[in-house]
Structures are given as structure tokens and as C-alpha cells.
């Protein structure tokens, strides 16, 4: 497989050389977002692969998180488009994107601190009918599902604790479980290994792998190179708001442009 550089000409979505049998998941075309004079995301055309673990790496300030926020609707891009599995989702509301099957975590882990662990899980329960919205929030089957997920990430014994009292690592696990509660098809993780101990990094990596085996697509922003290289199927390297290289981990690792961006060689 060859490394392909994205040059960022707006219409680059036509028949790009995809690896065989990797349908598209999230795609952006010419996505841009500036804050004042800073081009945080600059004409980024990126395709993520469905069913794979995609990693997005890059030096600090390369626009990864802004890219993330544009894609999930938290901030509106200045120009460009975002589509998910062929449907345009540019400028859709965050909750609509979430309900479309994309779950996300936040860079500095965010939970609802004054709600219990179980309540944190139940927030993600989706009710569409007005009558259901106004009935009790603790249906047995929903509670069971929440508990099963808490068991899965290993914090089920904490379900009545207020989430703000959990350790940082436990909050990370809770955030992941909460994302899973909505049954997303694609999961975007912003620095899942940031600020947690090596044992927990291992556990999170294992969970990601298991979930991927069950069919979930992942899109992971991460600084921990060991984790990225061991975990991901497809790596996209960001620098100055746009992708500069992509491919399998082994190829990206030795790409001169990547070394330059990271090490300034």
C-alpha cells in the first residue's frame, strides 16, 4: 500500500485510491475553520474507513480537536462539507449527528459530575415519542443495559456514586460506557489515553479492539504513539490543519513528512 498525500484541492473526492473493501465512513471535503487569523483546520479532505480503527495524529496545535468538533457539529466550519456514509451532515446539530450513529468522547474527559454513574449512563437513552419522554427515566431494560456496559468497562460497583467523585481513569471508562449506551455505529475518541496510567491504557485499548471486532468503527485522536501504532488499521497525520500523510501505521511511521512534522528534522 502506498502513502497518499492529500493536496487539498477541493474536489478530491472522485475515485481516490481506496484500499479494497473499505467502505467510507466519515468524509470531509475541503473542511476549513479559522479562529481570527489562525487556520485551525485548513482545507482538510479526509476519508475514514468504515469498520476500521482509524487514528488521527499530529503535533499539538495541528487542528485535530477542531477538526473533531467541526465533524461532530460542536462548531460550524467556515467552508467545506462533512458526510457520513454518503449522507451530508455538514452543520447539523450535535445531537442530530449523535443520533445518526456517531458517538464521541471529549479531550479532557467530561462526565456529568453531580449525577450518579448510573444516571450518567441513562442520559444517553434515546426516547423519541413525547409520551415516552415524560415517563420514568429508569425502565428496567434500560437500566439493565446500562449495568451491562458498566460491567463491561469494569466500574459497575460504582453505579450509585456521583461521577464527580470518581478517579480520572474511572471517569474515562464511564465516558466510554456512556458513549456506548447510545449504540453508535462509529465512535470518535479524543485522546483516550491522555492522562491515564499504563494499565488503564491497556484496558481501553482492549475495549476498543473488542468493540471493533463487534463491528464498531473507531476514529481516535491520540498522542500515545505506542497505542496508535499497535491499535489502528489506518493512520492519518495532521499538520497545520490538514492531512499530510496517511496509510497503515508501519508506513506512516517512516514517512519523512511525518518525521519532519513531529521532530522538526
Amino acid at each position, binding site marked *: 500500500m502506498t502513502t497518499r498525500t492529500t493536496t487539498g484541492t477541493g474536489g478530491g473526492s472522485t475515485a481516490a485510491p481506496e484500499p479494497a473493501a473499505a467502505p467510507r465512513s466519515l468524509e470531509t471535503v475541503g473542511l476549513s475553520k479559522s479562529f481570527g487569523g489562525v487556520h485551525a483546520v485548513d482545507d482538510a479532505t479526509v476519508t475514514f474507513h468504515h469498520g476500521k480503527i482509524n487514528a488521527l495524529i499530529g503535533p499539538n496545535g495541528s487542528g485535530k480537536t477542531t477538526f473533531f468538533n467541526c465533524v*461532530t457539529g460542536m462548531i460550524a466550519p467556515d467552508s467545506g462539507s462533512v458526510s457520513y456514509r454518503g449522507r451530508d451532515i455538514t452543520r447539523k446539530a450535535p445531537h442530530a449527528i449523535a443520533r445518526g450513529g456517531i*458517538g464521541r468522547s471529549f479531550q479532557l474527559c467530561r462526565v456529568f459530575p*453531580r449525577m450518579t454513574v448510573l444516571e450518567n449512563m441513562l442520559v444517553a437513552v434515546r426516547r423519541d415519542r413525547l409520551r415516552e419522554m415524560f415517563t420514568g427515566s429508569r425502565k428496567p431494560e434500560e437500566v439493565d443495559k446500562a449495568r451491562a456496559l458498566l460491567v463491561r468497562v469494569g466500574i459497575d460497583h460504582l453505579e*450509585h456514586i456521583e461521577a464527580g467523585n470518581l478517579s480520572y481513569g474511572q471517569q474515562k471508562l464511564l465516558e466510554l460506557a456512556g458513549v456506548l449506551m447510545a449504540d453508535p455505529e462509529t465512535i470518535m475518541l479524543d485522546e483516550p489515553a491522555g492522562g491515564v496510567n499504563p494499565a488503564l491504557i*491497556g484496558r481501553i*485499548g482492549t475495549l476498543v*479492539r473488542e468493540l471493533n471486532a463487534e463491528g464498531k468503527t473507531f476514529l481516535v485522536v491520540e498522542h500515545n504513539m505506542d497505542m496508535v501504532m499497535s491499535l489502528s488499521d489506518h493512520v492519518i497525520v495532521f499538520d497545520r490543519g490538514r492531512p499530510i500523510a496517511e496509510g497503515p501505521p508501519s508506513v506512516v511511521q517512516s514517512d519523512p513528512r511525518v518525521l519532519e512534522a513531529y521532530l522538526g528534522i
Partner: protein
Amino acid sequence: MPSASDTRSSTAPDDTTGPGGAGRPAGAGPWRGRLTTGRLIRLGAFLVCAALLLSFPSMAPNPYILSAGVVVLSYACTATAWNFMGGFTGYVSLGHAAFFGLGAYSTALLIRDLELSPFVAWLLGGVVVLVVTIPVGVAALRVRGASFVIVSISFVLITLLVFQGWDAFTGGSNGLVVPRPFPELLRPEHHRVFFYLFAALLGVMLLAWWAIDRSQFGMGLKAVREDEDKAQALGVPTRNYKLAAYLISGTFTGLAGGMYALWFGDLDPIFQFSIMLGAYMVLMALLGGVRHLFGPLLGALIVGSALEYFKMEFGDTQLHLVATALLLALVVLFMPDGIIPAARDLVRRFGPQQSSIREMTAAELLERNREAAAEAAARTAGGTAAGGTAGDGDRTDDGGTDGAGAAGSGKEEER
């Protein structure tokens, strides 16, 4: 896991974890499941308080005290109405007096100009407020935090100026006399009737607050209060939820205003669209505890009674405002969560200690280890994707030592 049905908890007051709801859908009431001692005490306390409240008109020594009671109840209504927005979503509106005034004036003008019967006018007044609240809410809820507070203040100032300036229609600063709904009643009787009318309105609000508090809608609102972005990312349509809460809150405030108009019989923009009134609502709710059903009511009983007392003792001086400011400072300093949580913590500190965490016996621990190992083995045998095996080994460890270790030690250090 056996832990799933364990409900020994001190943090979740409204545990409804029992499987009893399986046959009946939600809505079977707060006493679903066992009647525990705690619930009996709470039910008893509630009934006693309700009885005391409802017998107040008979106990009031003179009509003046009785009318003060009506004022306090009207405060309780507004504070509870405010709490639909402030308590659930954490959006602090200082401009809720605008809804109060709009409700009062709509009711009065509908009676005066369309000659509707008083209580039809009152209900329609609520509808008017609801309709006004929609565009106001859409605009105001575009911003958060301090900006929202400022927008809410500007709203009440705008309505004040409009109602003062448009004196041909509203009577302006000369006031507006509202025809009495029960002209045949003497003053004390009139107070007594309105005491119960306000109590009924309050009851409806409390019931609505309680229902929302335990609903999925309420869960979404509370998630907005905690972290709005996060709630959105989990699929909560926060904008619509906030708007719905704002409409409910504004409409109830308007209904309280309309009821006040019918009772008091004389409206003046400076009092109905007063920032002080909005500030009282916030103070009362904060004092009692915004996360609690009865928080605003308790706050209103304290602040309202104090206000009436100061007005009675010190007449026209502004001393009651000084006292209110002091009270606000004390609340913010010492009870940022309000009286109810502070009292609950106190009771808990001196009451029987319950561990909030499930203690595991050695046997349970062993069982847990075994289960985790079996699970991992099953998964490995199932032949998961590449890399799965190494991870599963990892997981076995977690299920046993790490998980149980956290159960035993992790919480003690943090609590």
C-alpha cells in the same frame, strides 16, 4: 451480576431499581417497591407539613396575617415556577418577573376589555404568556451563562418600560384596577379563598416538577445543567429541551401573576415587572435548594415570611432589602447548595452510617474472579479478531484484582 440489584445507597434518594416495574410501565408512583422506614418518615413529614400549610387560614389570628400568608404562597408559586428553568437546566433567569407581570396584566386586561369571566381570563392569560415566551426563549437561549442572565434582565426592563409608557392601554404608573372575582366576599373570606387557590396552583406545579424530575426529559435537562456540550454529544436535543423548560417555567410564573392580579386587585408596572421580584425567586430557590422539589417552597416560606415581617415591623424603610441581601450572602457563603442538601448532610453525618459502596466478601470476590475468567475464556475460544487474545488476558486481571481492589479501597480515599 448480583450487584445489579443491590440498592444500598446513600447517594440516590429515589432508587427504583427493583424489578417490580417490569409488569407495569413507569408511573406507578413514588412508593413503588417496598415501604421502607425512610419512605414512611418522609411520607409522614409531607402529610404533616401539608396539613399545617392548609390549616393556616384557620389559625391566622387576623386578616393581615392571613394576607401575608397569601403573599408568601404566591412567592412559593413563583419560586417553584422559576425552578423549572433554574433548577433543572441551571440557567439563572433574573427576569422572570416579566412573566409574572405579563400574566397579571393579561388577566386584568382580558377581564377589563373583553369582559371575560375572571378564571377564564386567568387561563387565557397563561396562554398569552406561553405565546410570548416562545420568541423570547428562542432568542434568550442562544446564549449561556452570564449572557443569559443579562438577556433575562433586559427582558424585564423592556416590559417594564412598555407597560409604564403605554398608559392608554395599561394604565401606566396610575395602576390598573382588576375587578374582583368574588365581589360578594368580605376581605378575610377573600384571602382565605385565594390562599387555597394559590395552594392548589402550587400543588399542580410541584406535581409537574416531580413528574419531570423523574422523566427522561428531566434527565436530559439535568444533563444540560451539568454539561451542555456533553449532553448534546450524547444525543440530547438540548435546544428544544431548554425551550420546553423555559415555556413551562414562564407559563407557570404567568399563571402565578394572573392569580396575584385576581387576588390583589391593583396592578402597577413598577411592582409587577420588578427586578426585585425576579431576584426574590432566585434567592428563594437557591436558599431552599434548586435540585429539590420542595427547595423553592422552603426558601419562599423563609424569605417571604422574613420580608413580610420586616415590612410590618419597619414599615416603609428599606431594611427588608438589607436583610435580604445579607441572607443571600450567607446562603452563597455557607450553603451554596441550599438548606435541604445541607440539612441532609447533617443528618447523614450524625445518623446511622451507610457505606455507599458495596463491600465484597472473599466469597463474592472469588465468584467474581471465576466469572470473569470464564467470560474471557469463552471469548478467546470464540476466536475474536486479531489482537483479541492478548487483551482478554488483560481483562481477566481487571475483572478480578483491579475491579475488586477499586471496590474496596478506591472509594474510601475519595469520599
